């Protein structure tokens, strides 16, 4: 709990106009950092809001949400002896980085189960709603749910990962009014009640997307995870302007009419990614406020990271658990709950920005939703930059149409062979032929999605589904269409060129290269992210 008065009155995000006095700006650079001096008088830096105070009594707030849900009956009144109860929860892609114990999912699921125990419910299953992501390991499940829940359910086979390719484990619920198929995990579909536990780190998460995507399979997901939908999602972080969400909401209608009763629980967390104290706290401070100690810490950390092998750097960063605090928890009707969640998300993340820019810059960190405890491969670099970071806007993109995006990341030609087997083939074979998402979708998606070997690895190993690298590429389709050029500073040249982008050694070189597209004196905007921020562009 925050006791420091400064933590009780956090400063909102803001836009800094860079002048000659402005110190070099921090860029995340994979598992390292860069400090870049940005041109004065034509550069803006958008800073995230400081972490909002966490709820003083998280357990009490969770209990209150379950007993007083929004547009729904209190949870205890929905629980009956002899019923089939399924608790589905977000997988390891949330939050980023993983949070310190106890994870919010553990806190909520323990309370839901406690109420189920009081009602005498015997038939309870817990399902990691991972859609086409990789399965969670025992350690990851224990971290998310705690040992008590794991030991009570996993040994009996009542706690497991969703399997979208299990021929006996999926059911079709029907078609939407746009003829989109809706499929669902059979156990969930046949339950009397599905309690879905969300961890909404950004505004994209939650709502009907939780069940319509998380518990679905390829035949349902392909209707919104495609190039046309992603290009019409402007942005997919803004649910009301996102075709991705509209499609999920249509599928939600089918679930509402033909599927199980859903009791939705959504939570938001604050921006306390790197802590108020400790070695990484400097990463969430504004550069001109770095104390002598912060500077010494940063320099020591940077020197240390510079001489370490990449595996050691990765291990260090993957071991970081964020001290996130719960800022809101709401439960009940899916749609009503999600609207409240969005308000809380935006309260933490939105920063008003006036006007677009010619050049948008940002530094990509070591992690994205698909490489937790894994390797950030070049396709994920593209997805994080052109997918997630580019779409961190409401209104219109931060960069003008035809503008230039400059990202900073080492982009090594490196893949995790267990987690990302289909990514390797996608990168080595398909991207060598074309980087056009439409062509990739039409020629190769079905082949990768139905490949028996990839399906086998998804079901029995810890591999992402064969079709997953396509989705990563589609995630950036809107940005690919919008941007005039993409430059990666400090990236491995061959990897960067394979992605269809241009490598640059330094930020000065990148700005020089950008001038070919946007002229010699372009306006520049730097997105100082993470901690997470979302630009409200007018």
């Amino acid at each position: 709990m925050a006791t420091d008065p400064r933590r009780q009155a956090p400063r909102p995000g803001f836009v800094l106009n860079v002048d000659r006095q402005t110190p070099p700006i921090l860029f995340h650079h994979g598992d390292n950092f860069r400090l870049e001096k940005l041109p004065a008088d034509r550069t803006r830096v958008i800073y995230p809001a400081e972490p909002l105070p966490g709820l003083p009594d998280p357990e009490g707030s969770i209990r209150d949400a379950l007993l007083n849900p929004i547009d729904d009956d209190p949870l205890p009144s929905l629980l009956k002896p002899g019923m089939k109860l399924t608790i589905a929860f977000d997988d390891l892609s949330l939050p980023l980085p993983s949070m310190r114990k106890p994870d919010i999912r553990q806190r909520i699921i323990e309370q839901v189960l406690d109420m189920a125990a009081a009602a005498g419910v015997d038939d309870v299953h817990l399902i990691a709603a991972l859609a086409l992501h990789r399965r969670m390991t025992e350690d990851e499940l224990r971290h998310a749910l705690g040992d008590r829940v794991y030991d009570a359910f996993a040994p009996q086979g009542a706690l497991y990962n969703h399997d979208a390719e299990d021929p006996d484990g999926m059911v079709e619920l029907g078609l939407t009014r746009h003829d989109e198929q809706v499929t669902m995990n059979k156990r969930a579909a046949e339950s009397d009640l599905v309690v879905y536990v969300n961890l909404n780190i950004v505004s994209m998460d939650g709502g009907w997307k939780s069940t319509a995507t998380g518990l679905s399979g390829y035949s349902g997901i392909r209707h919104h995870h495609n190039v046309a939908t992603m290009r019409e999602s402007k942005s997919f972080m803004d649910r009301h302007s996102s075709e991705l969400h509209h499609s999920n909401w249509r599928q939600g209608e089918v679930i509402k009419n033909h599927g199980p009763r859903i009791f939705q629980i959504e939570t938001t967390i604050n921006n306390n990614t790197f802590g108020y104290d400790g070695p990484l706290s400097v990463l969430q401070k504004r550069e001109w406020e770095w104390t002598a100690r912060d500077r010494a810490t940063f320099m020591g950390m940077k020197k240390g990271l510079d001489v370490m092998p990449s595996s050691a750097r990765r291990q260090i960063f993957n071991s970081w658990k964020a001290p996130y605090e719960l800022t809101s928890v709401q439960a009940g009707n899916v749609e009503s709950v999600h609207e409240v969640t969005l308000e809380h998300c935006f309260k933490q993340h939105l920063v008003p920005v006036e006007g677009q820019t010619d050049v948008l810059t940002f530094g990509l960190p070591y992690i994205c939703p698909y490489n937790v405890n894994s390797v950030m491969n070049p396709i994920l670099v593209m997805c994080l930059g052109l997918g997630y970071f580019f779409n961190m806007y409401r209104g219109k993109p931060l960069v003008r149409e035809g503008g230039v995006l400059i990202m900073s990341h080492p982009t090594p030609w490196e893949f995790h062979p267990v987690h990302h087997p289909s990514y390797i083939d996608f990168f080595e074979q398909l991207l060598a032929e074309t980087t056009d998402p439409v062509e990739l979708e039409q020629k190769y998606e079905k082949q990768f999605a139905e490949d028996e070997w990839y399906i086998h690895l998804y079901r029995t190993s810890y591999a992402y589904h064969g079709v997953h690298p396509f989705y990563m590429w589609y995630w950036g389709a809107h940005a690919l269409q919008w941007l005039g050029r993409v430059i990666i500073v400090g990236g491995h040249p061959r990897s960067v060129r394979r992605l269809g982008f241009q490598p640059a050694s330094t930020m000065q070189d990148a700005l020089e290269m950008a001038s070919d597209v946007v002229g010699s004196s372009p306006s520049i905007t730097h997105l100082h992210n993470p901690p997470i921020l979302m630009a409200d562009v007018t």
Partner: protein
Amino acid sequence: MSKLAKQLGLPKIPAALSVRRLFGALDFPLRAPSTPKGVAPKPQIRTTGGDYDTSWARKRPARIARAAIVEGPMRLAVAGLAAPERNGADRLLDLPDEPLIFAANHHSHLDTPLMLTSIPEPWRHKMIVGAAADYFFGTKVTAALSSLAMGAIPIERTKIERRSANLAADLIGEGWSLLIFPEGGRSPDGWGQPFRGGAAFLAAKTGVPVVPVHLAGTGRILRKGRSVPRPSTTSVTFGRPLTPAPDENANRFAARIEREVAALADEVTTDWYTARRRAYAGDSPDLTGPESGRWRRAWALGDRRATKRRRTWPDI
């Protein structure tokens, strides 16, 4: 004695050297005065038992010494003898930095060191322990050692007295957390004993939550009646803090604490959800064991028996 000396063939002690003769010869003021008949004897001020003054053990030098003892030799001894597995401390994470009453079941003298090394910060080093006045404070030496090493305060268990409860309540009011074993003594046979109302009374009086704690395995290491410890494994399970309901008296609250400890015991032997199901249905296995003959109670302990049967036949 003289008979024994004669049997053993010891030489006879000269009468002049006899202790009785020697001191009996001394007269007042060299010996204590006798009280005249008809005069009420002056009441003696006891300095042991429940009257022992433990305030010195809560002063800074003693606290530093105790922290060194707990984190040094006590932690090493507990790790070596008891190999504890500690669970449930996460249930205390959200609590404000205010005092708590830890109420645990009691099987062994090892319970206190195990608890003192398991209770998480910020409570561990501002802790007092309710200890039997007649046992731990029987002499000045044991009283001083108990106060210094454990932060013990005397609790009368053989007579009804307000002094112990008032002292504990005052100290809780000053910010000290309390460790108490509501059974009032170690288990005589491996089964638990009914919880007394002390912890519940103090919680009601001070408004401080009670944390139920279940200890398992310490009886195998050093049960009542044994003086040499035998290393084994133990577990410490912290439960959710409990506060008395507005209409709940101390006895009913004590019974609820006992039920929660029983549910924690169930959690250790089964799993968390089964334990919660049984707790809500009122089916948690009783800590006090079956009401039956002695051998059947011992038999029902199963693997929890303090002594294991000696194997007489080899495994085939």
